[in-house]
């Protein structure tokens, strides 16, 4: 117990970094994903083609590779990021691709009649999206987006490879120094707590959106 108390501060510092990567990735990737999702059903072929290429690239290669590529690869052609920026750049681009596919499906599930009703009421396309389409899409995509959000909590540990001091790294350092399993177990418990809290939050959100069907 005393040992746990001694390593807890370093683990909590790691949690903060993990949460930072998590929150900033969500903030960046969600809006980008919505826009890309809209773009995937654009009437312009070139936009669809580019976005499909982007989604393919991001979903078709390991996030770990993308992370390494951004932080260790890009400096070779004189594009350098500091560690956190590199992590966020890779994570946001990667997660936005997954969100884009989810939102594309969400937009496609809205019946055409909703757009037509808005049109005969003379609402502009922007008003239609904001007041009618997006609120319905958001309700529909909460479960799949929630899946990705839970994944992201765990994926955030990949920043380990570019030397960011997240939760996993903090635990690993403690375990190596003190030759004990305890830090790993604690790290696991903390991840479980984080996903539990997120799951409850997502359930609440789903429930909130149940005010209509």
């Amino acid at each position, binding site marked *: 117990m005393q040992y746990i108390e001694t390593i807890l501060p370093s683990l909590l510092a790691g949690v903060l970094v993990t949460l930072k990567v998590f929150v900033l990735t969500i903030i960046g990737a969600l809006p980008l994903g919505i826009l890309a999702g809209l773009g995937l059903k654009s009437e312009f072929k070139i936009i669809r083609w580019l976005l499909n290429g982007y989604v393919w690239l991001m979903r078709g290669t390991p996030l770990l590779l993308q992370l390494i590529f951004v932080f260790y690869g890009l400096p070779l052609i004189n594009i350098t990021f500091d560690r956190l920026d590199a992590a966020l750049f890779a994570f946001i681009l990667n997660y936005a691709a997954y969100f884009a596919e989810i939102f594309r499906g969400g937009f496609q599930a809205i019946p055409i*009649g909703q757009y*037509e*009703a808005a*049109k*005969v009421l*003379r*609402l502009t396309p922007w008003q239609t999206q904001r007041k009618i389409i997006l*609120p319905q899409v958001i*309700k529909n995509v909460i479960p799949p987006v929630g899946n990705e959000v839970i994944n992201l909590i765990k994926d955030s540990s990949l920043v380990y490879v570019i030397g960011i001091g997240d939760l996993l790294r903090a635990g690993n350092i403690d375990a190596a120094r003190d030759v004990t399993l305890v830090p790993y177990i604690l790290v696991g418990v903390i991840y479980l707590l984080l996903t539990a809290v997120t799951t409850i939050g997502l359930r609440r959100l789903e429930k909130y959106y149940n005010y*209509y069907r």
Partner: protein
Amino acid sequence: MIELKNIKKSFNGRPILDDINLTINDGEILAIVGPSGAGKTTLLRALAGLGDIDSGEILLDGKPFDPRSSDLKNNVIGVVFQDYNLFPNLTVWENVTLAPKMVLKMTKTALENEIKPILTHLKLAGKEGLYPFELSGGMKQRVAIARALAMKPSVLAYDEPTSALDPSMRTEVSNLLLDLKKDGVTQIVVTHDIELADKIADKIFRVNAIS
């Protein structure tokens, strides 16, 4: 008064509307009847600006207008869709007031003064806070009518107003339309229900399937 002149439309070379000429006078109910696939809905969609025509002209009080233009002065046709297309995420009140607020820029007081009576008239008073999923089919239809009327259209057009309802509701629908007629609302009813058309229409226009 709305006039349609020489309206033509074909899909993949197959004529759907073949030289339609038609006049709707103010305060009249015009029924457009015909078998499925004869172009009734195509005609209604063209009037509502949801589909285009190949040739012909639509006149409002003698002046040409383009239902597809987003210009507000072309806000002529209100549409009550077959399955109503209410916005499920909005309450009855929000469904009806969204466009008057955002498009006509009506103030809160104006909304209260002008929209409330429409709802009361359509027996929707007290239902303002309900969501569409909480309404019966007939109520949904009346909300759809209120939503269209709130935009002060010159003409109210219905696509198959009885088809999504229980047959026992037919009398209710025809009474409702005749009621609105008394208020001076000009109405176009697209229907395959000849009996309904006979009962309510001042004029019946038949579109025939072109073979």
